[in-house]
């Protein structure tokens, strides 16, 4: 059954007024979730700004190598995963199951790479003495608290996205899910990418020694 039929043509849908947005309920729901999640990230990034501005002993923990290089690699990986996701959505729409699996597999691999790079960076910082409540440089402890909280929330989104894409890919292969499901999951994945576009400059680039 096509997405159009699932939304408007079956059961009571045929008698209902069509969506003013001309998209499926599933996609609209994802958009509403994205807006709510964007407000959450916006609030914590504003909170980071206030606390940073209000901390006279704020310290800048990052150096070009390895932190910024690692951050740049992570950014390229995440941006590339958005491109592979778009290719996956296009292949799913054209009904090319093999190509869809290949592109979604590449997206999952890039997502896992991002998470591994992030966790490797965290491990290095833990070894240097950083934690949620410790600053080895002797300045405000809020540096570590804010960095790990914000990047942790973003990493949670990445891991959730990888799991969601895996489930959708398996379901699409088994013909349980449609191209619309792949597209909606892609929408979420692009949002995760979009959030990183703010997290990287504000948390990494503004904290270079």
């Amino acid at each position, binding site marked *: 059954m096509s997405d159009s039929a699932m939304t408007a043509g079956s059961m009571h849908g045929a008698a209902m007024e069509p969506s003013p947005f001309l998209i499926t309920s599933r996609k609209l729901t994802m958009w509403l979730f994205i807006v709510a999640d964007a407000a959450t990230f916006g609030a914590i990034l504003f909170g980071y700004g206030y606390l940073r501005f209000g901390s006279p002993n704020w310290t800048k923990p990052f150096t070009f190598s390895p932190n910024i290089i690692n951050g740049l690699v992570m950014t390229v990986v995440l941006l590339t995963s958005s491109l592979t996701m778009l290719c996956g959505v296009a292949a799913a729409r054209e009904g090319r199951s093999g190509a869809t699996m290949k592109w979604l597999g590449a997206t999952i691999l890039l997502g896992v790479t991002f998470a591994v790079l992030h966790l490797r960076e965290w491990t290095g910082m833990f070894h240097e003495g950083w934690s949620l409540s410790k600053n080895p440089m002797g300045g405000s402890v809020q540096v570590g608290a804010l960095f790990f909280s914000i990047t942790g929330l973003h990493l949670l989104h990445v891991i959730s996205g990888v799991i969601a894409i895996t489930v959708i890919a398996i379901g699409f292969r088994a013909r349980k899910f449609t191209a619309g499901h792949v*597209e909606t999951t892609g929408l979420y994945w692009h949002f995760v990418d979009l959030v990183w576009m703010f997290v990287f400059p504000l948390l990494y680039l503004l904290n270079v020694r």
Partner: protein
Amino acid sequence: MTTTETATEPTLRVYVYVWLGMLAIVAIEAVLVYAHVSSGMLLASLLVLAFLEAAVALRYFMHLRYEVPLLFWTLIPGLLLAFVMMNQFWADAARLNTLRFPIP
């Protein structure tokens, strides 16, 4: 009228150009950090570039450009208004310094 996913689809070439453009913006951001500009100017530049990237991602990667305009007008201005309202609390951030107890 039926409900459809999207009306028009850009080609893979468009996506690749957008991807390259976004990589270029990230490179500019990294260069700016080492360009010895003032901290205020750096923050403003990084925010402008981040919003530019976000707008491109929304329009092309998230297909907002290819949806009906009503979707954009329903979702985005409200979100921006929320950000603008959050922006009104900066004065309190400055007050944090004066509200502290002196360190013994």
